[in-house]
């Protein structure tokens, strides 16, 4: 399945000859999907402990949290936007679950509230970034501050609480669902993956997503309503980010509004490493999944090599540059005429 949508100004694209010697999309996507495999081989060679059911499962649990958080980032990027409110949404869900559970709320009620709040965040993001062509970067940045501040005001800064036992089980590498030895977090991620890919590839909404990302004016003429697409995109993103936030409550360390902070750049990194163009109109969540797996394994590898968090950060930066140099380079302006 390849998306044959070109970006840029269609009037110019139609008039110009096909770009010379353009690297085929297929070649680069093979590289993207091979990189997790290659990374896994490297990981098992350097850190033999990974090659066990528990080892693989703990990798997948980590990947599933990042993977859920990155759904929104992927779609936002595909429509030519960006979502900086994902960390705040993660923190919101994380704090709501733990504090309300401690106050004796039933889990379904908590989930309902988190869903409503997520939809509100997503809708606000979508509406505001459709208004006057405002840049989603600033809109979602403001939204992030608003969400985090509201959560702190509502809880008076007491963000600690209790964690339902089944959430802890869901992220436990030795956990299982229906007797299958796979943690619930991973199942949730796989289910989300299936739905997201189905929507991207087999639904009208998926088509509109790519159309809006490629060329908003053309999309409007094709009767795509950008506001609607944006509201859905940011709402789905917020919902998935909230799911990640709920899962994060299962890890030890207590709840916090800032628990999502690392996910600001790590979600963008996963999207970028997956090779989804930040110009919008191309890419797919499947690529992000490859990016999620690569970055998760890369971090595990560096931890295994006893490299400290600072140098991990440096090496992640270098790795991004190397990968994008291989498959994500822009064309020269002369080739875009």
């Amino acid at each position, binding site marked *: 399945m390849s998306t044959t949508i070109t970006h840029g100004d269609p009037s110019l694209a139609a008039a110009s000859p096909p770009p010379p010697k353009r690297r085929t999309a297929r070649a680069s996507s093979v590289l993207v999907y091979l990189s997790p495999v290659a990374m896994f081989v490297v990981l098992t060679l350097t850190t033999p402990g990974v090659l066990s059911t528990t080892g693989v499962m703990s990798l997948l649990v980590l990947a599933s949290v990042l993977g859920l958080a990155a759904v929104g980032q992927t779609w936002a990027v595909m429509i030519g936007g960006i979502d900086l409110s994902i960390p705040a949404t993660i923190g919101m869900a994380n704090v709501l679950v733990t504090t309300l559970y401690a106050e004796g709320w039933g889990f379904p009620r908590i989930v309902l509230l988190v869903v409503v709040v997520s939809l509100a965040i997503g809708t606000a993001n979508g509406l505001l970034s459709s208004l006057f062509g405002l840049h989603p970067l600033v809109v979602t*940045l403001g939204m992030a501050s608003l969400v985090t501040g509201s959560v*702190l005001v509502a809880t008076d800064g007491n963000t600690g609480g209790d964690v339902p036992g089944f959430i802890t089980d869901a992220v436990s590498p030795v956990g299982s669902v229906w007797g299958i030895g796979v943690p619930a977090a991973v199942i949730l991620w796989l289910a989300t993956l299936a739905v997201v890919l189905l929507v991207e590839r087999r639904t009208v909404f998926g088509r509109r997503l790519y159309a809006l990302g490629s060329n908003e004016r053309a999309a409007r003429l094709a009767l795509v309503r950008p506001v609607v697409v944006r509201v859905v995109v940011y709402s789905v993103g917020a919902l998935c980010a909230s799911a990640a936030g709920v899962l994060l409550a299962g890890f030890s360390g207590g709840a916090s509004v800032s628990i999502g902070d690392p996910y600001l750049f790590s979600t963008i990194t996963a999207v970028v490493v997956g090779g989804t163009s930040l110009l919008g109109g191309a890419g797919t969540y499947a690529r992000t999944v490859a990016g999620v797996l690569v970055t998760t394994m890369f971090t595990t590898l560096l931890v295994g090599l006893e490299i400290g968090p600072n140098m991990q950060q440096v090496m992640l930066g270098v790795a991004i540059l190397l990968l994008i140099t291989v498959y994500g380079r822009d064309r020269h302006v002369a080739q875009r005429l």
Partner: protein
Amino acid sequence: MSATVATPLLQTVARKVPYFVPALVAVAVMLLLTASESETFLSGGWKLVLVYASPLVLLAMAQAPVVLSGGGGLDLSVGPTAGLVSVVIAAVLIPRDLSVAWLVIVVALLTGAAAGAVNATLVTLVRIPPIIATLATYLVFAGLATQVLGAPTGFLPEWMSWFTSVDGVLPNVLYVILGVGLVWLLLTRTAYWRNLLMVGSNDRAAYTAGVNVTAVRFLAYLLTGVMAGVAGLVLTAVLGGADATVGPTYTLQAIAAVALGGLSLAGGRGGLFGAAVGAVLLFLIQNYLTLTEASSFELQMAYGVVLIVAIVANGAWDRKRKAR
């Protein structure tokens, strides 16, 4: 809809006045609010406010050239670059007794320039999209800075307190900001300025017209790096030491400031003055919220609301400007 209701006068005004005027008006309003809230503000308190605002002002100015250069131009690494500069000063130069003023200043500018050159190379020659390239250098610079300087230090040479002094008629840091502005003003008298705006609004047209798009953008990233270097120097002085974790926190604020200042994030419209005004506005908003003695939680909430309202108002004004 709103365009038809709008009085023609407002529209004419919107089209005639420079891009930074709405931000300037907002700054004036914030100044009045601040002055009414704080008695000491007019009698010298404003100098201190400006000193604390100066790192953000300089970083917003630093952000301007790359944003103007278009093509998704953005430098996420300005904050970490400033942080790296302050770490180089505090953890490399000072322990070796290399704290003479001229040397520290030269090293700060060169460090900034080097960071800018790395970004420039990645974006214009390797042709990695700006957000990705500068996100990667953000991680690298921030990681290196924390690696070199794990814990904050507070020992600075005597002369660096010049930056934070408010004894004169004007706070000294204002001279630094004006100095950067002056250099930029000279630059706008050259063909480079025209080329930068042209590349920013339509790089293909600029290329066809014979503008060396790569060189123009390369220089933009280099300028951004140098200005981030200046910001790093001032940041060190304002903090009274170096803390590797502070610099990175400025990046997103600097971008928000640029947008508030009326620059188009798509490139091609704006200038350094607007960026500086946007940064002052952003800082005054934060400062005012602090003055009202709201809790830090309410402050964060209000900040988000104000940022959104400001950016929406800016967008509405811009729409009016473009309306026919």
